[in-house]
């Protein structure tokens, strides 16, 4: 028996789920309630906000968190079913970094040895991401590898080159999967498959779940992947009582695995009660009317004068730079009127440096802050982390990867040198083949100053001394941090960055111990990953509260940030940018082919591609609109930042320019 709360964004569905959880937890204890939320951040926020005087274990998970726990607990049974014997006490769970590392190793190897993906220019790590996406999407949609193969080939049609790439993709994916399972290394796709094949339909396991839980609560049911929906169905079948929240306009993660159509089909017919939540706490009827209009206009693909009292103004310029200045000025005007900074959001499909820099500059000048939710700094861009890495590259004599500018910035920090002097030194070091030079011989001692020279000599001697010790990468990182960097009074961000580097390499080594490659190979590949930006600095800022500021985010980031409930004013930027209509298909992966819809048509053509893009755009815009309480500004420029004319169709439908 289950109840569904149905409503739009801002209608109070999550609040209902929270209230229900607290009521049930107070009655039967928190252990008896299994709650699924859609992101790790939502889980952590829900736990923090809980107002229970006493509670026990909190069974609040993302779907992946849950299967992670269940596989670990029941591993002896899973392994026995899988291979007939127990080989390990527990499996090793790989995160994205380690899966990418392993897959890109295979891509690299097959490319070199067998000339795979001959005309695809993407780097191994970019191809690896697509192959991992294929495996994930198939597993999330409960499809086995045979079905994955069938769908991949049917997507290729008669195109021989694409068929060849599909076969090559399959070769590598199968090798990857075989290796993972042999050494009990579980990435997301293998974990989901292992769970579904060995636990989910086992009657004894279902009994365990039945005895353990009484209630099943799910927020954002429409975003739950089909494998998660299957789990929910099984839990209902064994007798759990359910309370689910469903947003009919919340399908914006459709091609990241969510399947709102299937969710509706699976759960609506059998619901004991469907409670429509008609009130809206973040928006009014104006929002609903505008949402309906937008849906209609985008569907019909016709230019239209959508009018809405929510549209406050249009900011239109020839050049993007001018438009950004006008937007920033308008934001500042609102702030000066007393609107709180976190009640204003600026949303664009592409958060580039020009955009964030321009806005930040003007806001800071006026005493306000910008909170960039899309900040995805590479770890290597943080000065202390860069210095750590540069010293390691000198330590292992792999300095070819270091650029002069990186070295200059590193020296600037390590020797407390101004940019000009550090550049002089970096240039000389680069000229001598990236070897630490003798300052005397290079005649640099007076040029860079005696204090910096002393520090340089100390650093050079320190590195020489360490070379005699043959330290593992994480021990070396620790030594650098302790003995070289810590005395330089690092900021908290610097400390976090170093910590992240040291922790990530330690975890990485822990996971890849089973990869059976030499330590040296690991270190080198790992360093490449840092340089390629695979290792982002973003996770290190977890736990730190964002400073309240004007929100800058892409639509997806905005909608997937649980802390962003509703806002007063929304600025929708770059509406003639074609980035609003990005295709979901890449060279080697197309999320659509793994959906139920593909099963019915099995044909991929431009019209379908366009329809999917439009549906996605419609979902994004409608969900955004429901977050707005007071008004929307639309902003656009004739040319983009590169000076090219913008030709995306959205401006015609919203008709900003009235042309």
């Amino acid at each position, binding site marked *: 028996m289950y109840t569904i709360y149905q409503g739009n964004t801002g209608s109070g569905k999550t609040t209902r789920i929270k209230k229900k959880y607290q009521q049930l937890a107070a009655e039967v204890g928190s252990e008896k309630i299994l709650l699924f939320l859609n992101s790790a951040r939502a889980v952590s926020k829900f736990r923090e906000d809980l107002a229970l005087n006493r509670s026990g274990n909190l069974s609040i998970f993302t779907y992946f968190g849950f299967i992670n726990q269940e596989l670990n607990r029941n591993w002896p049974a899973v392994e026995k079913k899988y291979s007939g014997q127990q080989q390990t006490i527990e499996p090793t769970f790989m995160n994205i970094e380690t899966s990418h590392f392993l897959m890109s190793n295979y891509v690299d190897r097959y490319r070199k040895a067998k000339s795979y993906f001959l005309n695809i220019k993407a780097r191994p790590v970019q191809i690896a991401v697509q192959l991992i996406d294929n495996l994930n999407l198939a597993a999330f949609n409960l499809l086995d590898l045979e079905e994955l193969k069938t769908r991949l080939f049917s997507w290729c049609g008669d195109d021989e080159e694409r068929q060849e790439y599909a076969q090559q993709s399959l070769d590598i994916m199968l090798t990857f999967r075989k290796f993972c399972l042999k050494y009990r290394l579980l990435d997301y796709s293998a974990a989901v498959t292992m769970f579904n094949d060995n636990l989910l339909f086992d009657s004894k396991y279902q009994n365990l779940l039945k005895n353990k839980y009484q209630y099943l609560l799910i927020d954002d049911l429409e975003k739950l992947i089909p494998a998660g929906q299957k789990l929910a169905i099984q839990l209902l079948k064994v007798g759990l009582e359910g309370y689910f929240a469903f947003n009919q306009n919340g399908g914006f993660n459709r091609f990241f695995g969510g399947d709102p159509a299937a969710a509706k089909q699976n759960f609506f017919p059998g619901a004991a009660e469907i409670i429509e939540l008609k009130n809206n706490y973040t928006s009014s009827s104006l929002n609903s009317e505008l949402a309906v209009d937008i849906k209609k206009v985008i569907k019909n693909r016709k230019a239209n004068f959508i009018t809405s009292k929510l549209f406050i103004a249009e900011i239109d310029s020839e050049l993007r730079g001018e438009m950004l200045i006008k937007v920033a000025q308008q934001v500042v005007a609102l702030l000066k009127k007393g609107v709180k900074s976190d009640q204003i959001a600026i949303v664009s499909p592409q958060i580039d440096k020009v955009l964030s820099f321009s806005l930040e500059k003007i806001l800071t000048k006026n005493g306000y802050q910008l909170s960039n939710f899309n900040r995805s700094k590479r770890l290597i861009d943080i000065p202390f982390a860069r210095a750590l890495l540069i010293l390691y590259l000198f330590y292992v004599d792999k300095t070819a990867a270091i650029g002069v500018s990186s070295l200059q910035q590193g020296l600037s920090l390590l020797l407390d040198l101004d940019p000009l002097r550090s550049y002089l030194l970096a240039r000389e070091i680069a000229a001598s083949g990236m070897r630490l030079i003798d300052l005397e011989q290079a005649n640099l001692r007076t040029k860079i100053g005696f204090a910096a020279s002393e520090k340089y000599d100390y650093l050079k001697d320190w590195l020489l001394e360490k070379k005699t010790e043959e330290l593992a990468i994480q021990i070396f990182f620790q030594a650098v941090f*302790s003995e070289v960097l810590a005395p330089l009074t690092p900021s908290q961000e610097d400390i976090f960055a170093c910590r992240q580097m040291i922790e990530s390499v330690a975890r990485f080594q822990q996971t890849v111990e089973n990869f059976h490659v030499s330590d040296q190979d690991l270190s080198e590949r790992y360093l490449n990953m840092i340089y390629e930006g695979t290792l982002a600095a973003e996770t290190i800022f977890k736990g730190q509260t964002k400073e309240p500021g004007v929100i800058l985010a892409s639509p997806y980031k905005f909608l997937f940030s649980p802390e962003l409930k509703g806002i007063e004013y929304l600025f929708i930027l770059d509406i003639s940018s074609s980035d609003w209509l990005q295709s979901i298909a890449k060279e080697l992966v197309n999320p659509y082919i793994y959906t139920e819809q593909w099963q019915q048509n099995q044909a991929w053509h431009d019209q379908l591609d366009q329809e999917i893009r439009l549906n996605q755009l419609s979902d994004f815009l409608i969900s955004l609109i429901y977050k707005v309480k007071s008004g929307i500004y639309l902003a656009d420029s004739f040319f983009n930042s590169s000076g090219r004319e913008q030709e995306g169709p959205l401006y015609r439908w919203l008709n900003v320019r009235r042309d």
Partner: protein
Amino acid sequence: MAVSELKELYFSQSSLAIFQSCQKKFYYRYLAGLYWPAEWGMNEEIRQDLKLGQQFHLLAQRYYQPTLEETTLVSKQPLQAWLNRLKRFCSAVDIIAAEQELRLREAEFKLLAKYDLLKYDSSQARIIIYDWKTDKKDFKQKDIKSSMQTRFYLYLMVKAGYKYFAQDYKLETMPCLIYWNPRYPGQPVSLKYDKKSFEQDQTFFEELLKEILTSSEFPLTEDINKCRFCEYRPICRGKRSEAIEVFEEDLDLNLDWESVEEFEF
């Protein structure tokens, strides 16, 4: 665990012990979020011991909690021997829960403990708390009776647990806490609790929490000896740590997909 404000923090026995030991360390670890994996700086032998400790806790959890299949440990010594000793020492009857968390939320503060095993003692109508240790030191070398863990575990059980479990169990006498180490199977330490100790602990914890919650500065300890074994020594003292003290809450080294923001749902 890192929170921006003290009032949001769930205090554990480790966080309280760390505050008492060095306020700066408390600040770095719980407020600034500067948390380092426990195995850092450890030699291979200690790392292996830590891994054994983790695996033993996992096996104990599987033994006491219903799972589908028992773990087979052929040729996995000493884990096999430890698990056999555990089964002999404490059978899987009268189990309330294994790896049980307990949270208490008061107006001013929040407390959290994770118990290895809780059993119900129907003869005395009380809860018995079990805690597994796997380090090489035996209990004689530790001041375990007055440790922060002992006081916190018992206090929180009475304060929150006895009400939380009241629906399912008749609880009339004070809980007891048993420490046991599979390396020293014949030397369990059993600690009783009484009303007077509870009242003393209540005053102690309330005062300690008040001190923490009204702190605005978190000074570095003056005891340099403590710094020798602290992971923050490089930052505070500019020197490498000689070794690092390991806290139980650090032992969960496995990658937890809930702790990383990678995939939605």
